[in-house]
């Protein structure tokens, strides 16, 4: 019998090695990779996101849970590919030009990945041209732009303009976030969604595929 709940708890506690070993064991016992993903990893990461939102856990706890999730996903990936489990879509994520803050962005990335969306991380200090090129290359459905500085929020706007200019605006949903960003700002620059935390970002991203 697969120990989904135990795996979910290991993820929530950030016990990466123990989790990876248990995932390996579950696979060896014939548990479908998709079930491990959905019944333990996605559930576990969702729980972490909720507790983070409620200030029950904090950045260090979320970071180690994300690290455990990453390690478990690496174990699962070959099996997922083999069993033909397709991601529901593709999201690009980055911190915008001029900005090097990436802790929030990485959390958003892990949470979105946890919902079964493929996430491609373009890193920090990402110019609009790079993002436009990546949308084409990866045929992205969603673009997530993070900005932590008042001076770089404007790069979110520039990126949306560049996406428009490239004729791709109807093709992708744009999500924006980061501490200084507000719903009003998101509306002003014509983004499709804004959320104030990573767990809500993941819910919102998933809702685009509903």
């Amino acid at each position: 019998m697969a120990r989904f709940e135990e795996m979910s708890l290991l993820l929530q506690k950030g016990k990466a090695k123990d989790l990876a070993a248990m995932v390996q064991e579950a696979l060896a016992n014939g548990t479908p990779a998709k079930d491990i993903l959905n019944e333990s990893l996605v559930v576990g990461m969702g729980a972490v996101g909720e507790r983070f939102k409620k200030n029950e856990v904090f950045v260090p706890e979320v970071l180690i849970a994300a690290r455990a999730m990453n390690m478990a996903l690496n174990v699962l990936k070959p099996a997922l590919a083999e069993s033909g489990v397709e991601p529901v879509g593709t999201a690009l994520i980055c911190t915008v030009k001029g900005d090097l803050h990436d802790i929030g962005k990485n959390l958003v990335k892990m949470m979105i990945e946890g919902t079964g969306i493929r996430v491609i991380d373009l890193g920090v200090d990402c110019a609009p041209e790079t993002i436009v090129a990546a949308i084409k290359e990866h045929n992205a459905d969603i673009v997530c732009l993070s900005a932590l500085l008042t001076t770089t929020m404007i790069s979110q706007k520039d990126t949306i303009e560049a996406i428009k200019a490239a004729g791709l605006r109807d093709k992708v949903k744009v999500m924006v976030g980061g501490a200084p960003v507000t719903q009003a700002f998101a509306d002003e620059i014509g983004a499709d969604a804004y959320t104030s935390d990573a767990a809500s970002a993941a819910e919102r991203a998933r809702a685009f595929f509903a």
Partner: protein
Amino acid sequence: MLRGNDLATAKKNCQSFWDKEWIGRPFLCVTAPKDDYNPAEMSYDNTYVRRMADAEKGDYTSSPTEYARYIRNIVHYGEAMPFYNADLCPDQCGVFFGGTLVGQPGTTTSWCYSIAEEAAALDLTLDPNNPTYRHMTEGFRKAAEIANGDFFVSVPDYHSNMDTLSALLNPANLCFELMDHPDDVMAALEKVNSYYNEIYENFYRAGNMEELGTVGWQPVYCSGRSAMVQCDFSCMISPDDARKYVVPSIELEVSHLDHCCYHYDGKQALGHLDDILAIQGIDAVQWVPGDGEPRTIEWMDLLKKIQKAGKSVWIYDWTAEEILADRELDPRLTVFSLSLPSQSEAEAFMKKMEQKY
């Protein structure tokens, strides 16, 4: 001192601020350009990047000399004092312990690049020959010489305690270390903290603060040792971790100072409010809600809570009208900073404030 001939009164009032004595109005640090200011002397490049570039060329005098010219054009009212900022980076303690100082091209700011991933890998011995430490010490000395008692050299914005480790490891790695190797973090923190007094005294002496007193990043003049204390990294961690790592560090720093103000940065750090307010030696709190958040005037409950805990609040972002209209804050426990566009407006404002109380 370019403070004007009421310097003695201003100093006395500042002492009343620390003693929490009523001076007939709230404490006010008001500045304005003089009516006959010289426009050519007003635009002075006051950035980290400039001071860094100067220091690398061995030029410790251009910037304070320009400041000396600039500050002659400014009038100070109430408790405001003229001070020159000679810091080279926000995360300077990180740089003193070997972090790489980098100026961000095209901007005015600089910061400290991390140099390791794990706390155990850090060599936390303070090397007095560290180039930035030397540059800054020399910069403080030269600035104090040029000031010649006309203005203060600002007490540094240290970014000590956990902020130093956060700079040296980067904040995400410090988060991982807190979970993976808490004992190493504690050992590293104790090492860093053990240098606070030495670093403080170094700049205290270099900036001639022993003779003149202290002011700057912490806005109210103190005849002895004062500073801003803070831990920006605390916005990342749980109240339990803050109690374990941050509070004792702040207590240690506070014990070295005669007076201090806590720089409270960001809504995410508010979970630690009660613990910070419980620290006896903190005299005042500067609340910085962060961009995208409402201004401090919208946080009246929080400001009142700080005052209720017996601490003063430093308000830096209200307009003259808002200050004049305020009836909610306890004026005994409030200091307002305000810069006004002209001498006449500043004088009118000061008069109205005197009349109000």
